[in-house]
């Protein structure tokens, strides 16, 4: 299965992945309208310090601790993609306690949001296609 992998050597720390992610999950078709004057809540996040930067998003683990820990059954693996049913999630944050990568986060309305590899959109995830330097790739490893 294809997953997102990060090559920190190539990361420019430009944060474009965060914007493309927020846009892809906004449900809007105009990027400016979707993001202008809005605090974005992307599912991929850049960590940066001095000259080092890299993007972090869900690893879609084969042994997903978040899924196993989820107290409601809202998190599940669908063909290897870890998906969240936001209608079922009550925002207890047990998955935040469990994820070793810090890759699940509360959405503005309190329930959990996470990278779902843009499965609804199809094709490569938006962060990958939007990365200007191929620091984020979508491949089989």
């Amino acid at each position: 299965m294809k997953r997102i992998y990060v090559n920190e050597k190539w990361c420019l720390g430009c944060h474009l992945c965060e914007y493309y992610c927020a846009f892809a999950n906004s449900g809007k078709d105009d990027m400016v309208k979707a993001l202008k004057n809005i605090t974005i809540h992307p599912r991929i996040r850049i960590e940066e310090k001095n000259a080092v930067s890299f993007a972090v998003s869900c690893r879609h683990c084969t042994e997903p601790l978040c899924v196993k820990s989820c107290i409601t059954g809202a998190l599940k693996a669908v063909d290897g993609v870890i998906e969240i049913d936001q209608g079922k999630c009550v925002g207890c944050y047990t998955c935040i306690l469990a994820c070793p990568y810090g890759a699940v986060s509360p959405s503005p309305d309190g329930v959990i949001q996470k990278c779902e590899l843009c499965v609804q959109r199809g094709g490569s995830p938006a962060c990958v296609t939007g990365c200007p330097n191929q620091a984020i790739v979508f491949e089989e490893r």
Partner: protein
Amino acid sequence: MKYVIIGNSAAAVGCVEGIRSVDREGEITVVSREGHHTYSRPLISYLLLGKTDREKMKYRPDSFYSDNGVRFLPGRAAVEIDPAGKTVTLDDGACLPYDKLLVATGSHPFVPPIEGLDGVENRCTFSSLDDALALEALLTPQTRVLILGAGLIGLKCAEGIAARVASVSVVDMAGRVLPSILDETAAALVQKQIEKHGVRFFLSRSVERFCGGTAVLTDKTQQDFDVLVVAVGVRPNVELVQKAGGAVGRGVTVDERCATTLPDIYAAGDCTESLDITTGERKVLALLPGAYMQGEAAGVNMAGGEKLYDRAIPMNAIGFFGYHMITAGSYDGEEYVVQKGADYKKLVTGDGVLKGYLLLGSVERAGIYTALIRNRTPLASVDFDLIKEKPQLMAFSKTERLRQLGSRR
């Protein structure tokens, strides 16, 4: 292969999924005293709060039993295990043969002997969907509720009903709320938050006796109430294993493969005691994630695979009225504490590893801390100043990060 599972909650579901990851064919029978489709026990307070409903609180979809080829026997209780004949007898006299058996019977609420308790008309516990429905049926906007116990279950109950009743009072012998997971500073912050929603606390005292709808506390003050909720703790359901001759400590004794001391009988979840790797003590870690993972490991092993459940730690993620806390591990060791208003953080280190942590308010990315504890990562191999600042992968070496973000996990 014939598998029988006693119980139908997190550990049982983990076991079904564990068995099916190895064996698609064997016959699985699930026996459940509760008559419901598998549901998320922690959600009973959210049900009263209106944050979930009967449909959404199902722990697995309606098709769970048929998808997994499970024969589901709801509303039936196992009354005896015969380890020599390898059978389980049910309350209706039926006798189920097994090749491998899982005991996932969970726990039951402890009701302490208090003078006059039997004379209290409206009395509930808060551990099951039926408990929650029974409590709900007693609630009106005029109801005064008295909750015995300021632990996780008592406080979750308080949160669930606070807006629906006239008053909620909580009595606990301990001097602070959530004494098993919070220190004094954190407990005071949480108590204040809950008090904002009208819940009143009577700590450091217990009920001496009940006279109908009046509780006389040990400090001789009195509390009048209409409904009493007893939530002072739970006890593991160990009787079936004990009667069959299996070893029982605080809970059912199991090894890392989740096997009991009886042949072909496994146990998982709240009915067992596990080894807390942060203290080396065996205790009952009554937690849903642990129950699922232990059940899953048991299932894999029952089906002939190999999976160890050997990294148990106490851990909790919980919130009250939007105020969140995440805690893990144990608190014996050197402390690093930061407090900024309602945000509170405590990290505890010892023997060169992170032993435990407590986050209140800001809990983002806490799992990075949890992983340090579970993996017993030597702190010498990470930048601990960065870890202290916040949970972040930047604290790891480039090589470790490449492993985490650049390879299949």
